[in-house]
């Protein structure tokens, strides 16, 4: 029944769709985080997000700040940075359009493990944890695939880290 209503809605709304909005939705569907979602589901997610512009050098969040949101890079670049013991700042990675960061905030509200700084003029979509939690409880068809994608990403990172730690401890060259 839900599928039938969805199909009917698709046919009814097709002629009056906004091409720019559809382009945005298609762009978001290319993200690994949202690859399992339909255009309507991504559209719903888009309405829950807030867009914000940052200029070059703007600090999006600092290491140690309480994390409450996931960020999706729409344009520009974001540097993920960590402060070393000697006070130097090391850039871990530069994230471009179509990537995301801060996803750990969807799981807990512990301090951010690194800082995020805009490298140039950057537009991000911000999905706040309360909105994500509401999606998981009321729209599990949207929330759960995102949660699964976050968990898969974290699992990959943990396996990679385990291997690196093992190699370091056993003295095997990287």
């Amino acid at each position, binding site marked *: 029944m839900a599928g039938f209503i969805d199909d009917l*809605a698709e046919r009814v*709304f097709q002629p009056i769709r906004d091409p720019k909005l559809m382009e945005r*939705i298609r762009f978001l569907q290319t993200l690994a985080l949202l690859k399992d979602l339909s255009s309507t589901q991504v559209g719903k997610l888009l309405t829950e997000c807030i867009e914000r512009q940052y200029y070059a050098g703007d*600090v999006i969040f600092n290491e140690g700040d309480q994390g*409450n949101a996931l960020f999706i890079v729409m344009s520009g670049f974001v540097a993920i940075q960590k402060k070393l013991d000697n006070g130097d700042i090391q850039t871990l990675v530069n994230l471009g359009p179509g990537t995301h960061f801060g996803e750990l905030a969807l799981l807990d509200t512990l301090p951010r493990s690194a800082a995020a700084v805009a490298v140039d003029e950057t537009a991000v979509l911000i999905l706040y944890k*309360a909105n994500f939690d509401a999606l998981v409880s009321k729209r599990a068809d949207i929330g759960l695939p995102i949660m699964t994608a976050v968990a898969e990403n974290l699992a990959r990172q943990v396996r990679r880290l385990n291997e690196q730690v093992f190699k370091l401890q056993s003295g095997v060259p990287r």
Partner: protein
Amino acid sequence: MFELIERWLRILLLIIGTGVFIFIFFQLKHILLPFVISIIIAYVLNPVVRMIEARGIKRLTAVSLLLTVMMGGFALGLIFGVPALAAEIEKIQNRLPQITKDMKVFALQLEGSLEENYPMIGSKPVIGPAFEALEEKSSQLAGNIPSWIMEHMEQIILLILVPFNVFFFLRDGDEWMQKIYNLLPNRYVETVLSVVSEINASLGGYIRGLVVDGAIVGSLIAIGLYFIGVDYWLIIGLITGIGNLIPYFGPVLGFGLAVLVAILGTGGPAAIVKIAVLFGIVKFLDDFFFQVLIVGASAHVHAVLVVLSVFLGGYLLGIVGMIIAVPITVSLQVMVRILIDRYRFKTVSAARERAQADHWVC
């Protein structure tokens, strides 16, 4: 040192700004009702607009579609409802002098009976003069409903602006919020977002559910009173439904009105019993089914706080204040909780949190 001064200056500016806003709000409160109603309607309809937007439809198109459908439904409601309402108002207008006379006779009989059985009360002409004044007022009102409408034309015209206000709030509301977020300094973005999102989560379902709940309760009461044979069933149903927006007071108002009409009409004690049973059944269904299913998770505000806020809202801003009292209380509660959480978070050692890591993940 300078940082501390700067921080206190900012807090002072914020307090002054809030004070100025509240002062202006109170000065303009008599024209605020239509805007408050428009904001509530826009807030209730926003999720529907977002649902249409999620299909890739431009916001303007989504809002226009939705409001066209709603205005069509409203027009149909007017076509069928206005003649019935007008007939009931005319009946009240014609019967008001007789109703006042009947009430005076009843009250005088009661006064006489009390003086006879309790002579210590003493005889003081209270009822007579009070009802003479009431009779005079009701005769004036009976003849002057059209001129009352003329005197309050300004407020009525403002109410007519509600659909236009709703259109603009729906079309541009999200964009205005977006602009406010863009103006925020980076360090405050997540805190403000957290406040807005959590207020939305607490309040959104509550307000939307309350409006739907009021419509259902009002309809059930109107239908029930019609079958019982109580006069003015439509007006009483409408008042009960609207009154449902005010926690605790609204349902009592509807019941009181229905009983009063039954006493003054031809229903007799049997009608009063039927009205009591009807309101009891609807209240039971409302508390155990409608509110649970429609209003959903409550706003998590203590009942005493709800009553206190409604009283305070009514004292400060009249009906407008009573309607917006609970939403404002919920918003303030969420803001305070988040600010306390943020303050606590800063004082807890991050190293201590990390040291509580559970186990090695493979």
